């Protein structure tokens, strides 16, 4: 590879991005040095094993990636606003829709959900941390450096351009010569390993570390959805691991898994990808259902309707999610028998989902509803998600799918489920748990501005796409001619996208505004909450609970408030608390993964081996480590409790 090919050249947009990246990095280094914050950054954040801080870092990354993926989306909408636009060429457009899809699913939706679950799940089950805090830090940093590796592709070497599904033979060496798809394979692999470890970690945490009295059927619904999501992660992500490894072998070492000659089979990739890919969409939607359940129950001020039916339907959806993958390629050569079977399993998913929709509606019924921002997102979710779901059932009919397949109808469908489902849930969860993360409330007025701008913008952007799809516009086309009559609806869609972008800007301003002027939450329970996270201070002291709470029913904290007037801690009950030590190793080991991955992308095997050796070194050092954490003495706990509760 020549140096002139190393950096991406020839596009004004890329040069502008280069300048922006360099300026941002210089700015960060300057600010950290000027305010003498390097040590703080290392001690408080980069080496932390505290689930709450790790969760916050996940969410910060997710918001940054939402920005990146959102810019990709706006560039695409700009190009499609009018026929025969010359704003982006075909190659650049291919790269942008690929990175938009990959980033939004894997580096925005996933970390947002994982961030919220990191912050909330240990608090909801009355635990002091996750089962494996060190592993949790490693999971985060692997995700972080995987995302970084993926993102640098657009200035170094070139972005992947075969779609987020990376179908072969297009994504193979025959048709994609550059390093772009190597980035795809390696970066997703690194962050995927992190996700798998998160799944194991939280499954053990939820199974083994619940407070006394919290039986499985007394767990908060969000925790239930995370439990099932972990099971999905544990059985789906290894398939991705293998699929990406085979892709790497094909692209870097010249094997014949998915090639067109020597017996390779490109459909094998499509099957492996979607055997992971379909459970993956439930990995991001089930926790969203959990968030809505918490928010709806809190702000309707009622116990969640049909708790057992909710649990049953989560399990049902999780089971079905593994046996529907062929519906992503009904048109790609499976026979009528296979298509019919997968058509039926796909439509069956509507049944447990419908059960959940009715449960939320019955929870709201006769509730004393408070229209907070979090509640508005949850209320908007129901009709919007139903539109996405019903069009999904239309797509599930294999015969009809031959009309809809890969058209804008499909684009509209999955944005209606992923945005109205997952993104609305992330925003609802962000507003709902924000006081728990940072100790102040996100401004409600600005929050409602974000909500209306984004929600209306979303419908203006994506509803016309159903019709564009029926009019014949196919996905991934970078331009179209004027005579097709698609122009007016495309203009409308672009207007909607801009409204969503403005909504996002208002959200970012709200974060800044609320940090400076927002209402401080001195009680720890700003929403009159029902579950145990609201029994802690806002933000919680790093050990979460001074004594382990005892759970008597569903909505544990609600019961405590009704029976005892709150969660009371007697100072004589305090005992020394055992906590895990911080470690810098997850950070530098993930750097080693990044270096090894970068070497693999460019086939610089010496560099890859150096990175791999450092990974092995990290594992050996961990094995010999004899650090059992430390104990916080009772006096220290008393002091911290008084400081945290001085406002209450």
């Amino acid at each position, binding site marked *: 590879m020549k140096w002139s090919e190393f950096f991406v050249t020839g596009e004004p947009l890329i040069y502008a991005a280069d300048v922006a990246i360099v300026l941002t990095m210089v700015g960060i280094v300057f600010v950290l040095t000027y305010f003498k914050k390097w040590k703080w950054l290392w001690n408080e954040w980069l080496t932390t094993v505290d689930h709450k801080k790790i969760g916050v870092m996940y969410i910060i990354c997710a918001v940054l990636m939402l920005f990146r993926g959102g810019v990709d989306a706006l560039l695409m909408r700009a190009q499609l606003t009018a026929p025969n636009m010359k704003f982006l060429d075909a190659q650049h457009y291919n790269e942008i829709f690929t990175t938009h899809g990959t980033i939004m699913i894997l580096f925005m939706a996933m970390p947002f959900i994982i961030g919220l679950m990191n912050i909330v799940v240990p608090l909801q089950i009355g*635990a*002091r*941390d996750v*089962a*494996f*805090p060190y592993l949790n830090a490693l999971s985060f940093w692997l995700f972080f450096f995987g995302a970084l590796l993926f993102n640098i592709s657009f200035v170094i070497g070139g972005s992947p351009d075969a779609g987020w599904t990376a179908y072969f033979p297009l994504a193979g060496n025959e048709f994609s010569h550059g390093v772009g798809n190597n980035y795809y394979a390696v970066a997703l692999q690194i962050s995927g390993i992190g996700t*798998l470890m998160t*799944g*194991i*970690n939280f*499954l*053990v945490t939820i*199974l*083994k*570390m619940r407070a006394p009295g919290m039986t499985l059927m007394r767990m908060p619904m969000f925790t239930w959805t995370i439990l099932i999501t972990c099971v999905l992660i*544990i*059985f*789906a*992500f*290894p*398939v991705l*691991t*293998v*699929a990406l*490894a*085979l892709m790497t*072998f*094909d692209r870097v*070492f*010249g*094997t*014949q*898994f998915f*090639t067109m*000659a*020597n*017996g*390779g*089979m490109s459909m*094998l990739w499509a099957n*492996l990808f979607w*055997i992971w890919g379909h459970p993956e969409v439930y990995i991001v939607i089930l926790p969203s259902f959990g968030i809505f359940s918490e928010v709806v129950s809190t702000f309707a001020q009622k116990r969640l309707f049909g708790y057992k039916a909710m649990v049953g339907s989560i399990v049902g959806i999780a089971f079905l999610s593994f046996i529907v993958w062929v519906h992503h390629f009904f048109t790609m050569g499976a026979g009528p028998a296979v298509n019919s079977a997968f058509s039926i399993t796909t439509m069956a998913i509507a049944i447990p989902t419908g059960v959940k929709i009715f449960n939320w509606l019955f929870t709201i019924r006769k509730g004393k509803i408070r229209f907070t921002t979090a509640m508005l997102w949850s209320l908007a979710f129901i009709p919007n998600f139903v539109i996405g779901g019903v069009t999904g059932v239309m797509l599930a009919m294999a015969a009809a799918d031959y009309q809809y397949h890969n058209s804008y109808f499909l684009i509209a469908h999955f944005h209606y489920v992923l945005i109205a489902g997952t993104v609305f849930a992330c925003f609802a969860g962000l507003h709902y748990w924000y006081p728990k993360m940072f100790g102040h409330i996100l401004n409600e007025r600005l929050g409602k501005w974000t909500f209306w701008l984004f929600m209306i913008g979303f419908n203006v952007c994506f509803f016309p796409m159903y019709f564009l799809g029926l009019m014949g516009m196919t996905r991934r086309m970078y331009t179209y001619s004027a005579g097709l009559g698609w122009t007016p609806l495309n203009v409308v869609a672009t207007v909607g996208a801009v409204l969503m972008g403005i909504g996002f800007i208002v959200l970012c301003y709200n974060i800044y505004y609320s940090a400076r002027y927002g209402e401080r939450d001195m009680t720890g329970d700003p929403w009159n909450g029902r579950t145990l996270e609201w029994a802690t201070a806002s933000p919680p002291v790093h*050990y979460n609970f001074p004594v*382990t709470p005892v759970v008597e029913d569903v909505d544990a904290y609600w019961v405590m408030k009704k029976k005892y007037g709150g969660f009371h801690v007697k100072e004589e009950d305090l*005992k020394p*608390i*055992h*906590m*895990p030590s911080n470690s810098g190793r997850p950070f530098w080991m993930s750097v080693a993964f990044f270096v090894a991955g970068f070497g693999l992308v460019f086939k610089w095997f010496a560099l890859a081996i150096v990175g791999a050796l450092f990974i092995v070194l990290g594992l*050996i050092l961990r*094995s*010999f480590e*004899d650090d059992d*954490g430390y104990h916080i003495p009772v006096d220290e706990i008393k002091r911290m409790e008084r400081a945290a509760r001085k406002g209450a």
Partner: protein
Amino acid sequence: MGEAAHRYDETLPLEYRTQESRLNILGFWIFLGAEVALFATLFATYLVLFQRTGSGPTAGELFEVQDVLIETLLLLTSSFTCGLAIFEMRRGRISGLIAWLLVTLLLGAGFITFEIREFIHYVHEGATMQTSAFLSSFFVLVGTHGAHVSVGIGWMILIIIQLLQRGFTPKTARKVFIVSLYWHFLDVVWIFIFTLVYLLGMVI
């Protein structure tokens, strides 16, 4: 964490006594569940591709019975000696434990030696992982298993060093127990490789 982490239960075997150990062992079982999914995917890939030999050799033309049988005997025996090591640990005899672990990892090393010999032999016959889809999937499936065994050998060496340094503690006992779970798991995977790759390949 908290008091729970230090709940110490004398009635349980050494490796299960602390809460931390119980969490680690459960976590490792779940990790093995993920490994099952991983190997299942590799087996599925192999079964889809194993008759797609392109211009390369077929399984029946390629496989050498003798090497594979020696590998199988070595690995199955190593699983038995690994079981004996745990038996010695339960009896509280550290020298017996270390001796059987050493036998186990020597048998594992023997397995790897024969496997590498087998692979080199195939490559000399012109059957590389770039030759055909069948060979790609064969080398990646069997190679992934071999890489796991190699990691297991390195891991066992680290644990033996720790046993020599620290003796029996709840922590070292737990580590021995977990590496033994890993080792038996690899044995089970090999039984499937032997059946679905080698036996099937020589029959069809």
